[in-house]
């Protein structure tokens, strides 16, 4: 017996997983370009979030049609991974259906994979129809022009091809299992509620040819899976992995609580300290305040915000509930996330091309990707954050960029400058005297 197949298979696996780990390293590196933020508190609540929201899909079903279809595809993904384990063992050791010894359990497993495969095909078809025929508003918006639109469809095609290959592989295998007196190594194993109806297409074909086809289907199936795995790096489909860390590290505080910038606290305290010497040189601080307030580029965002960007699957639920977007403003929370990822990938490439050092490219997330007009349209209502099925916060990025515009560039819209001047001078956003604050008591 030749070991060529096994060696080929091992090489395929090494290449597939090797490239994949290289991509994972790059994503890790890019996410770590962000500033630090502590999300190690309250592990119990974090694990619960991950279990409920990522594993349990609890926020997906808020929209029942997409939610249930998504659960089918997701279950298909998880469960068919068990099949993948068998494929890998068979491929490496030249065995055939190594788990067949499980008997009835094996039959149940294979049967449920087959039924899931069909359900996945149905779900994926509905998804395709929603994107390309019904054209749901959130799938045809300008956010998705070009690559993101194709990406969404490619993922669906991938699923169709993989599920079809899986069923054809089983059907041809079943055909050979049923050859009277047995054929080669095709032992009777598995239960095939779906592919038994496909198997008859092989009637009249020579056993040798069917065996060749089985092998081709098998190889295409595993190769397809490896290609799909490596496709994640370029795709919104990355969410199947990152949804888990993303929900774990998501904000646990009330949605209305925006972080207080520590660097500002230090300065304000110094400013208000009656004992501070106004003529003293600025104290030299080992942990000096960052040179920049707010965010104008991806390196100014924290690593959770960057993880958010890689996790976003561009479903557009955020944008569909955004009051600004609903009323025709430019702001789209989904676009904020997509722009952040695109810019982060660009910065990552820059670092790769320049031997590990970022060389300024005269571009930034602000202006080149996200315009001030988008940022100023936000009402900070948290609808996007509430809606996100994986707890992404586009709002936190919007706020950090507003901070940059206001504190670094003094570039707030004029009426806001007037409001802030009033707050500063008379303690109210309007021009009323603080001494008149209690006048209402005696007015009619």
């Amino acid at each position, binding site marked *: 017996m030749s070991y060529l197949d096994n060696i080929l298979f091992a090489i395929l696996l090494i290449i597939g997983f090797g490239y994949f780990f290289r991509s994972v390293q790059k994503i890790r590196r890019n996410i770590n370009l962000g500033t630090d933020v502590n999300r190690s508190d309250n592990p119990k609540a974090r694990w619960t979030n991950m279990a409920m929201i990522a594993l349990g899909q609890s926020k997906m079903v808020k929209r029942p049609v997409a939610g249930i279809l998504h659960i089918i595809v997701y279950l298909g993904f998880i469960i068919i991974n068990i099949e993948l384990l068998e494929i890998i063992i068979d491929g490496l050791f030249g065995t055939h259906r190594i788990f067949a010894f499980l008997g009835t359990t094996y039959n149940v497993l294979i049967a449920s994979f087959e039924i899931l495969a069909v359900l996945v095909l149905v779900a994926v078809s509905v998804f395709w129809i929603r994107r390309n025929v019904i054209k749901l508003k959130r799938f045809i918006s300008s956010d998705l022009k070009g690559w993101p639109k194709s990406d969404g469809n490619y993922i669906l095609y991938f699923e169709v091809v993989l599920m079809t290959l899986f069923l054809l592989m089983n059907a041809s295998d079943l055909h050979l299992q049923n050859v009277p007196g047995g054929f080669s190594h095709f032992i009777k194993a598995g239960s095939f509620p779906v592919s038994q109806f496909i198997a008859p297409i092989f009637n009249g074909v020579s056993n040798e040819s069917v065996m060749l086809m089985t092998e081709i289907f098998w190889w295409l199936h595993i190769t397809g899976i490896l290609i799909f795995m490596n496709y994640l790096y370029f795709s919104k489909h990355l969410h199947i992995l990152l949804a888990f860390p993303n929900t774990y590290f998501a904000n646990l505080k009330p949605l209305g609580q925006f972080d207080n910038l520590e660097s500002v606290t230090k300065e304000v305290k110094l400013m208000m300290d009656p004992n501070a010497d106004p003529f003293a040189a600025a104290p030299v601080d080992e942990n000096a305040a960052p040179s920049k307030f707010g965010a104008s580029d991806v390196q100014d965002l924290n690593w959770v915000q960057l993880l958010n960007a890689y996790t976003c699957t561009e479903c557009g639920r955020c944008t569909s509930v955004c009051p600004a977007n609903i009323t025709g403003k430019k702001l789209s929370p989904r676009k904020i996330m997509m722009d952040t990822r695109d810019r982060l990938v660009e910065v990552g490439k820059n670092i790769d091309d320049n031997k590990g050092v970022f060389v300024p490219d005269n571009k930034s997330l602000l202006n080149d990707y996200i315009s001030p007009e988008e940022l100023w349209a936000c*009402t900070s209502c948290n609808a996007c954050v*509430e809606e996100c099925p994986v707890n992404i916060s586009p709002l936190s990025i919007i706020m950090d960029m507003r901070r940059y515009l206001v504190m670094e560039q003094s570039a707030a819209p004029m*009426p806001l400058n007037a409001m802030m001047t009033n707050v500063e001078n008379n303690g109210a956003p309007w021009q009323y005297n603080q001494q008149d*604050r*209690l006048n*209402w008591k005696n007015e009619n």
Partner: protein
Amino acid sequence: MSENLIVPTMAEMLAQGKQPEVLFWVGCSGSFDDRAKKITKAFVRILNRANISFAVLGTEESCTGDPAKRAGNEFLFQMQAMMNIEVLNAYEAKKIVTACPHCFNTLKNEYPELGGVYEVVHHTEFLKSLLDDGRLTIEGGQFKGKRITFHDPCYLGRANKVYEAPRDLILKLDAELVEMKRSKANGLCCGAGGAQMFKDAEPGNKEINVERTEDALETQSEIIATGCPFCNTMMTDGIKVKEKEGDVKVMDIAELIANAQDL
């Protein structure tokens, strides 16, 4: 006719060596905006009726800094916050009630890290607790059987998950509470948050408050209840745009309760 509202200040209380049960944070809108001042007074009337020991900061109160923070001016926010915290801590304030969800959110969530730790409640929560403790009784009065819909302020609802207190109060009025298609966690913003109140909207095809007013009008309610002075302004403007001033009123929960008791 000048009504006799009893509104002690913290300074007066301190002079008498007293500490009120609760500090009423009036907020800028409640102090200066003509419409919001009516909400402030309605709330005070209820407090007076229930004999609640409360006090206001009066001229010592200043903007919480919320609009500055949402606009991106963290410096101004923290300056306001620290000045307010100095005042509040000097009076040893423990519990604060406010009728503005923006003040509520900021005082409750963003002040503690800066040294201002208080128990902060929204006025609807406070009224609900008075009711539960039997310190206040509510009768439906003129609102009995009327269709009322409640608009969730973002900074009360999604931001702090207070959905039930205002609804419980409406139900206590024996009114028919009708939900809009987008409510509670799915509620649509009135358009005022994030400092939008103080600027023009970006170019679009509709004003957010009109979109939200349409949600409210769909419920065929006679009254749109709110718990936020800014939402109140936005919804009132929306009603004007829709030319429904004659049919639909926008009222704060405090006003509903005060009016029901003929206060």
